[in-house]
Structure formats: structure tokens, C-alpha cells
């Protein structure tokens, strides 16, 4: 057992630091130009623009420790804004289940961030119980074209997306998981209507998407008809381990402490108030433990073993910690957290409430915490399902 980084890992860390410093955004520069250059330079490093892609698809082929270092180092740096849907979510499915033609057709534009994707999974009647989805895809008699009808909801960035990857129902018989088909189609076409949904934090990131008689050629289907659930499920697991956000929480916690210290109380600050301090401390303890839970999980992956049971708790604990940090930021803002869109009080308090309210979604999306617990009970504790 050893927590030191090897000489090679330390050298890698220096290389990452150097890259991030050299290519940092310079205030006043054109953002889009910088972004494109950043990705181009990252690509030239050998796949740093797609850190999680496997080597045969142009990724860097890092060890888990290198991924950990990357996550740590990038948590404090400003990276170009990057939607996760193409690079992080669709690409692994294309790599795993797409045809060679589909890979050649879609992956280059995903990697170049030329095409924005959105994810059409949830529906008004299918949230955590995703397998109950009803958006219908009917194959034409000649077997060439699907006609898609239905409604998707909570579709993040649908209003900015060029394409959607979408779970559709192609069969109502048999096990409901077996009648689901994975289709890709453009968003900017007649028959698709995107309606904004404004969430508690006041922002527009998610949408309702109505799909009316949209024609999708059969070559836009990933894998077999009726197997879409299997493809999506693998990705969900992948998505969940990435949602813990530990490095970002470590940075956010330090920021919270700094903010609380700036709130003066008598001769000291808010950090000297026992009740507040105890909450921050308990939060930090949980985060320190989770950091090592992640390391244990990475170490298991490094050794080539299956992820241990500890990896299953990352999303649950990680999102809960993010919410606690957001909540304490609101508490630190005091009465100024009540303000809405008007610049009064300490600077951090101005969007603290909006961030906190948005954070309530963390334990809902990507599999609600309660669903995560069902999954852990079944897969890790080995309890036979059967909900009473």
C-alpha cells in the first residue's frame, strides 16, 4: 500500500499543469477562437481532447491514476465549456455497438465539437422507470425508414442541439426492456418542437421535445432493433461514476470556507460559529473519505479487476456532498441569499441560491438516489429484488 505518485505519474502531472498553464484563457481573448485552439492543442498532445476515449479511437489510453491526476488538475483550471452528450455519452455507445460506417460518420464531428448532441431518454411518463418509455418508432414495410412519434422531457440543451440520440419503443410485446431501439436523428427538421422548461434556479437548460412523424433511416439505428436498452444501460453506469465530481467538490469546499471567512462575526468570522463550522467539518470528513473511495475504485480498475463494491456509492455520496456545499453557500450568504438577480450583498451570495436550487437535480438525474440504492441493494448486497 502506497499513496505516493510514481515518478512517471509526477512527470505526467507536471506535463498536465504545464499544458493547462500554457493554454489558459487570456482575459479579453476571443472565446471561440481560444476554445477551438485549446481542443486542437489538446488533440495534438495525443488525445487529451477526448481523455476517456480508448486508444484505438484516438484517446490517450491513460491509466486510472492518470485520469485521477487529470481530474484533479483540471478542477482548478478553466477549461473550454464542453457538453458531455457527444464526447462522453454517445461516443462510447458508438464505439461499443455502432457499425464501422456509423463510427466513421459520427465520431470525427463529435470529437471536433462540430455537432451538438442531446440525449432523448426521459419521458413525461418514464423518469427513473426509464423502461416504461412510449415514444414509438414504426418501421416501414420496406424496412428502410422508422417513423417516430412521442415526447421526451428534461432534455438538456435540446434547444442548442443539432442531433439527438433517442430511445424509442419498437415493440410492446415481451419484456418491456426488450422492445427499445436506439435511434439517431437531426433536431433541426419539421416535426420536432422544442419547448423550454425553466427550473427552480431560474435557468433554461432542460426542455420538452415533441416528436411528430419524424422519419429516421434505418442506417441511423445503433445495433439491433429491440436492443437499445442494453446499450443505454451500460452507458448509465458509466455516466453515474462520472457524476461524483469529487475534485470539483474539493475546490468548491475551499471556496466555501474562504467565503465563510469573509463573513465577519464579532472579532472572527462565520467559520468561528460552532454550528456552521461543525457542518463544514462533517462535510469535509465525508469528502475526504469519498476521495479515497474513488482512489480505491481507481486502484481496482488499474489492477484490471472489476470495479469493487465501493465504486457503486460514488454518485450517491458525491452528489449529496455537492448539494451540501451548495446549501452551506446559501447559509453563508445569510439574508442576501434571498436576493434574486440584483447585485447586493457579498458577491458569492448573488448566485448562491440559484446554484443551490439547481443542485437539487443532482440526486434526481442520472438515476435518482433512491434508484441508486435499489441498484446497490440488488447488485452489491445481493438482495433479491421485489419492492414492497
Amino acid at each position: 500500500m502506497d499513496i505516493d505518485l510514481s515518478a512517471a505519474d509526477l512527470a505526467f502531472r507536471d506535463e498536465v499543469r504545464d499544458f493547462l498553464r500554457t493554454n489558459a484563457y487570456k482575459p479579453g481573448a476571443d472565446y471561440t477562437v481560444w476554445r477551438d485552439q485549446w481542443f486542437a492543442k489538446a488533440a495534438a498532445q495525443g488525445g487529451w481532447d477526448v481523455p476517456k476515449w480508448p486508444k484505438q479511437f484516438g484517446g490517450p489510453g491513460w491509466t486510472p491514476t492518470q485520469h485521477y491526476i487529470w481530474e484533479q488538475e483540471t478542477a482548478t483550471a478553466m477549461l473550454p465549456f464542453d457538453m458531455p452528450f457527444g464526447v462522453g455519452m454517445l461516443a462510447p455507445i458508438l464505439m461499443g455497438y455502432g457499425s464501422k460506417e456509423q463510427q466513421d460518420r459520427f465520431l470525427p464531428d463529435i470529437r471536433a465539437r462540430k455537432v451538438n448532441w442531446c440525449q432523448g431518454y426521459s419521458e413525461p411518463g418514464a423518469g427513473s422507470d426509464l423502461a416504461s418509455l412510449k415514444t414509438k418508432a414504426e418501421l416501414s414495410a420496406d424496412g428502410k425508414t422508422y417513423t417516430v412519434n412521442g415526447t421526451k422531457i428534461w432534455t438538456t440543451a435540446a434547444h442548442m442541439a443539432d442531433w439527438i440520440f433517442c430511445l424509442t419503443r419498437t415493440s410492446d410485446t415481451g419484456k418491456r426492456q426488450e422492445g427499445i431501439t436506439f435511434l439517431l436523428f437531426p433536431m433541426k427538421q419539421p416535426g420536432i418542437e422544442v419547448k423550454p422548461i425553466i427550473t427552480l434556479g431560474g435557468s433554461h437548460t432542460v426542455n420538452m421535445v415533441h416528436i411528430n412523424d419524424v422519419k429516421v433511416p434505418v442506417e441511423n439505428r445503433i445495433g439491433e432493433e429491440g436492443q437499445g436498452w442494453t446499450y443505454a444501460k451500460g452507458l448509465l453506469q458509466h455516466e453515474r461514476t462520472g457524476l461524483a465530481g469529487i475534485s470539483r467538490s474539493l475546490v468548491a469546499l475551499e471556496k466555501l470556507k474562504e467565503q465563510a471567512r469573509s463573513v465577519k462575526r464579532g472579532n472572527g468570522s462565520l467559520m468561528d460559529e460552532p454550528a456552521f463550522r461543525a457542518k463544514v467539518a462533517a462535510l469535509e470528513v465525508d469528502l475526504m473519505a469519498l476521495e479515497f473511495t474513488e482512489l480505491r475504485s481507481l486502484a481496482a480498475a488499474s489492477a484490471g479487476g472489476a470495479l469493487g463494491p465501493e465504486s457503486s456509492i460514488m454518485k450517491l455520496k458525491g452528489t449529496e456532498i455537492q448539494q451540501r456545499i451548495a446549501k452551506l453557500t446559501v447559509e453563508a450568504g445569510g439574508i442576501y441569499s434571498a436576493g434574486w438577480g440584483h447585485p447586493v450583498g457579498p458577491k458569492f451570495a448573488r448566485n448562491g441560491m440559484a446554484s443551490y436550487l439547481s443542485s437539487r437535480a443532482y440526486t434526481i438525474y442520472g438515476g435518482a438516489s433512491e434508484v441508486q440504492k435499489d441498484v446497490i441493494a440488488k447488485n452489491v448486497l445481493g438482495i433479491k429484488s421485489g419492492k414492497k
Partner: protein
Amino acid sequence: MNFDLSSEQQLLKDSVDRFVADNYSLEARIKVTDAEPGFSRDNWKSFADLGWLALPFEEGIGGFGGGPIETMLLMEAFGRGLVVEPYLASIVLGGGALRRGASKTVKDSILPGVMDGMRQLAFGYAEEQARFDLDDVVTTAKADANGFVLNGTKSVVQNAATADHIVVSARTSGGQVDRDGITLFLIDAKAAGVERDNYPTVDGLRASEVKLTNVHVDRDRLIGEVGKGYAILEAVANDAILALSAEAVGAMEVLYKDTVEYTQQRQQFGHALSEFQVLQHRMVEMFMEYEQCKSLLFRATLESAQGIPTAQRTIHALKHLVGKAGTFIGENAVQLHGGMGMTEELRIGHYFKRLLVIDAQFGNADHHLQKFAA
């Protein structure tokens, strides 16, 4: 960065896992704790034969030179087995003080007997007014012609009844809570003026109130320098927290796994209890707390082993989490076992009691949260 065990560590783990699996049934434990001295001398002899009693001592005096990782492996298995032998008191605490501060003469005369199991040690650090503060010491040690004369009472001294020697903290100078002026002494348990009021603790172990009335200690039985005992006290307490936390993690594992197993067998309302989602989620929470404690145990142990400066703070974090999670897991193990959880027949209650005592030893969850936040 890796969490792999070396081949020696793996051998140690295998041997202690096997020994615990073969020798620690609940029936055997109850039989031993119901009688004096409250542990099995045969087992203690086996510990010596297996080399465990020599584990943390330096190789020059016949030890194995093990560190925090080795002790963790041993203690975690002891926790799973609910081992009652006084390893913590004799080896981690008493032995820990001696190996850090005793003169060569004392080490040579005492430690071989400790390592071969013929002698046992205890460690008296707590006092009634001190609560969890190691630096709050009113027991006095006054220098005289040949050494020191000690007066005061050390509280809840584990294993004092069986120990041949007791390491005690006493004040040689300074005010009640000054760190300077605390000195450690090695006293003979049967020395004139040592009175032991022995009693069982709720977890089946043994402790004593040790009253010292004009107890004479020779100058060569000083542990460390006069007035500089606090650093040793603190180092030993840190070792103890790591060891107890490892033991607690072992106990938590048994509690959550026993609960999962029991609820799958127990039928109510025509279903196995485990089919009820509210119970499933509770058990997932127990499992998660266990994993989090294990992670922090690794972190604190490795930071200590590698001498990383943040180790002290991580140790506070660990003892906080272990206290909190231990209580949560223990209470819920009893709750989910229902009425059966309240009986002495099932082992879970015994594990729960041990976790409660661990929380109270060397500072409870709140105490360490405050230290962590300071």
C-alpha cells in the same frame, strides 16, 4: 499509488483471518468473557507463537518492525472476530509507549516478556476530570532521592487487572492542562500503593480504576524525558485511534453483512424482510458508511505510515466518522433484526456494544470533529 498488500502483509492477513475464523465463535467468546481474566491465555500464547505480539517492535530487540499497515490488518480481523485478548492495551498502548520512550535497559528487561506473551502491559492515561483531553492531568509525580512518588487516580485503565506493568501519565510540573510537565512512568502493577478496582466493561472486556497512593517509581522507570511525556502520549493515542478504527471497520462489516443475511431469511407479512424497500435502503446506507470508514481508515493509516503532515488531521476525521458510522450501523443492525436484535443470543448486539465502547475511547465523534475543525 496502490492499495495492494506486500507478500508479507498478505501472509499476515491470511494467518490472522484464518485464526479468527477458526477460534472466535460467539459461544467461545461468551465463555471466556464470563470468567476471569476475561480473555484466553491459550489464545494469547498463540498470538505470541504467530509473532503478532512482536509485530510493531523494532527488529533489533526481537520484533518484526511492523508499522500502521500491519497493525491495521491485524486489528481489522480482530474486529471481525470480536477478539477479546488485550492486544490494544498490551501491545499498541503499553508497548507503544515503551518502544517510543523507554531506556534500552527497560526495553531489554520488559519487552522480551511482552513479545513472548509472558508479561502484559496496560496504559493509564485517562482521569475523571479530563474527559477526552490527554493533556488534562492532575495525578502528581514528585521527585525524591531515588526517583518519583506518584499520587492520583487513573480511570478506565484497560487490562490493568492482568497487566504486570502499567504506563501512567503524571504531572511533574505546570498547570492542570499544560502539555509541558507531563511525564510517563512505568509502574509495577503490584507495587506498594497501587490499588486496582477491577470491573468489566459493557463490551465484555476488563478495565480498572487505578489508585496511586505514594507509589514510588525508580528514576530508570521513566518513559521519555521528565516533563516531555505529552508527545509520546499523543503518538500512542494516534496509534490507538488507528488500531481501534481498524477494529471498528471489521466489526461494521460483520454487522451490515449479518443484517443483509438475516433480513433475507426472516419472513414477515408473507415476504422476506429484505424485499421491503425501506429496509433495503437502510442496509445500503449501512454499507456505504462502512465503505466510507474503510476509505478513511486507509487514508489515515497510509498517511501515518508515510509520515505525511496531514496525518494528524485525517486521524481526527477518521475517529469522528468511525464513531458516527459505528453507532449508525450498530443501531440499525439491532433495529432490522427486530426483537432478536435485542437478545444476547445473536452476535450483533455484542458487536454493537464493542462499537459503542470504541466511540468512547480516545475521544468520541464530537470530540474529534471539534479537533478536526480547529
